[in-house]
């Protein structure tokens, strides 16, 4: 490379520079910022206004709170079930995120590193299911949830937790202390529970088969109107995404690192958990943020599968329970909408770069 000759820079830039900078940068930037952020400002203002004097009077300038107060926020906590919805949403989003991350990490590693029959087909399946929108299957999925018995699901959950959790626990046991058992010890309970789960599920199908058309909406024999309905169904769109994102991430980690561990006698699981997963933490973090925000924001499954007021998540609770009849309590509504958005905004603000790299992974890497 030839050294670039220093460019002569005059001390004062010509007037046309500032003009073009205004036209090509500042003006459009201001417009775009107003376009994207004005609705949030508006929500904040409405939530702070005095409802009788300001919101319900179209003659008052709408974009500034002249009598700011927190009455709407107090109402939200004292008179509505908002705190309960917040708790529900937190539990559902956290658990479905954990399930999706563990399943996605395992599947992603398998697809990225292991050679087995059908691996590429499974990769395609995970990509295609990631693209399937929730609105395509919500009606039959609701039937699955209202008509399949609880034991089947609970055992599936327990199985998954054990099968996935125990190998993870092995991280904390030094290899010399579990000589002779290794991966088998961790997988055995999982495999057993898997067997029990499948057989119980099959039993449930046949036992319930005769009564398949009598939906028991009130009883506790199925998942309808329980948090499990969402904790188990959110991973259907989160796991494919995590798998697909992490497959790409695992592939970018050099094979040599784990191969040397394999030569030293480590099992695949040990190599994966101790070498590959720690290196893939940034990718796992992206997947985590994505999964968490997607499950926090989900609307249609939460609307359909949870039916009682107390069991709502924030998006459904605020939209469907705070709008009742003809009188709209706009201030409370906006307060709920803002508070419901704050957790995802906070998570996002801490990990912007990870979120953006997850968002653009598909598009840019191809």
């Amino acid at each position, binding site marked *: 490379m030839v050294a670039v000759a220093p460019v002569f820079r005059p001390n004062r830039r010509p007037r046309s520079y500032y003009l073009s900078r205004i036209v090509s*940068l500042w003006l459009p930037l201001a417009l775009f910022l107003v376009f994207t952020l004005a609705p949030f400002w508006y929500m904040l203002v409405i939530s702070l206004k005095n409802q009788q004097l300001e919101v319900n009077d179209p003659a008052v300038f709408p974009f500034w709170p002249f009598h700011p107060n927190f009455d709407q926020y107090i109402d939200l906590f004292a008179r509505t079930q908002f705190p309960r919805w917040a708790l529900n949403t937190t539990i559902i989003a956290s658990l479905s995120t954990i399930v999706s991350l563990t399943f996605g990490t395992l599947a992603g590693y398998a697809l990225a590193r292991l050679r087995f029959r059908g691996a590429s087909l499974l990769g395609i399946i995970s990509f295609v299911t990631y693209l399937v929108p929730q609105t395509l299957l919500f009606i039959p999925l609701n039937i699955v949830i209202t008509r399949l018995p609880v034991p089947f699901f609970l055992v599936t959950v327990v199985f998954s937790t054990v099968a996935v959790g125990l190998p993870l626990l092995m991280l904390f046991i030094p290899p010399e202390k579990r000589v002779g058992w290794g991966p088998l010890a961790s997988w055995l309970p999982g495999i057993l529970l898997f067997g029990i789960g499948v057989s119980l599920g099959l039993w449930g199908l046949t036992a319930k088969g005769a009564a398949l058309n009598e939906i028991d909406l009130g009883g506790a024999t199925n998942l309808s109107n329980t948090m499990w309905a969402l904790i188990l169904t959110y991973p259907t769109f989160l796991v494919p995404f995590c798998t697909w994102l992490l497959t790409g991430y695992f592939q970018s980690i050099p094979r040599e690192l784990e191969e040397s561990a394999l030569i030293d006698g480590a099992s695949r699981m040990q190599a994966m958990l101790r070498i590959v997963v720690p290196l893939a933490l940034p990718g796992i973090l992206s997947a985590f943020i994505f999964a968490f925000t997607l499950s926090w924001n989900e609307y249609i499954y939460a609307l359909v599968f949870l039916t009682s007021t107390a069991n709502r998540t924030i998006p459904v609770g605020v939209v469907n329970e705070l709008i009742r009849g003809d009188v709209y309590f706009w201030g409370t509504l906006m307060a709920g909408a803002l508070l419901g958005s704050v957790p995802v905004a906070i998570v996002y603000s801490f990990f912007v770069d990870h979120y953006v790299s997850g968002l653009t992974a598909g598009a840019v890497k191809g």
Partner: protein
Amino acid sequence: MTVRASVSATATAAQAVERGGGIQAVERFLDREGVLGYLLMTPALLLLIIFIAYPFVLGVWYSMSDVQIFGLGKFIGLKNYTDLLNSPVFLQTVKNSFVYTGFATVFKLGLGLAMALVLNQHFPLKNLVRSSVLLPYIVPTALSTLAFLLAFNPTLSPLPWIFGPLHIPYPAAGFLGDPLLAMGAVIFVNVWRGTPFFAISLLAGLQTIPQDLYEAAAIDGANAPNRFRHITVPLLTPVLTIVMLFSIIQTFADFQIVQVLTRGGPADSTHLFATLAYQTGMQGGRLGQGAAVSLYMLPFLGLLVIAQLWYTRRNASR
């Protein structure tokens, strides 16, 4: 490869002999790629079989039966599908979905590209601005749509304060009372929500274009519009295509914005497949027909997914 394999095989064999026992054999069996691969896939696959594949089969079956919330369903063939084709509401919904998707995508693409080009410049607080424009895409759509529900209200809307000085009359019935305006309103909210996604993805695409290409072109005498046409556009096309296909899928199957703003009204003028399916299947209790409405999305969605898959793989292999 063979050397390494034989070395590790010798090592494991030596260990097995050292420790003895059949457990070692099982351990080694589980550690084989062909076995471990399936084991690691099992949790994910099980989940997808129970909650995607099974509901899908069930959905197809239900769409061919007259099952309702209560009572026994019986097989009625394609009656649900043919009934829908004779229903004016459904035909309106098909039209709405394509209008909604078409207009929203064009606007999101145009505005998103413009936003990306603006954000790609250097200015103070660049990172803060870049991350805050993505907020509409991050927060729960159902909740942010509430701001628009009030903004499009007939009496309480703040828009007359903006329209007044520009001498634009604010519609007496609000934006959601008139079929055409309501469609415009739901498209607007979708564009508001989706533009940042386009912008940030395209911005990431722009940043992968090597700067020296522009410098070389500038030295060769290409002006800014020409540099945009001959460097930016061709190099951005792969990103653009993937982002657009993804967005079309999401927009076509959209639910929240319409459900919160209009519930398909006025006079079914904003119904999309998903909102009609919800109304028919959940609120109307006609599960079979609701499932059929949803499944009518499948041909178009299928085409998009295949296109996306084909395009992504072609790009990856290049």
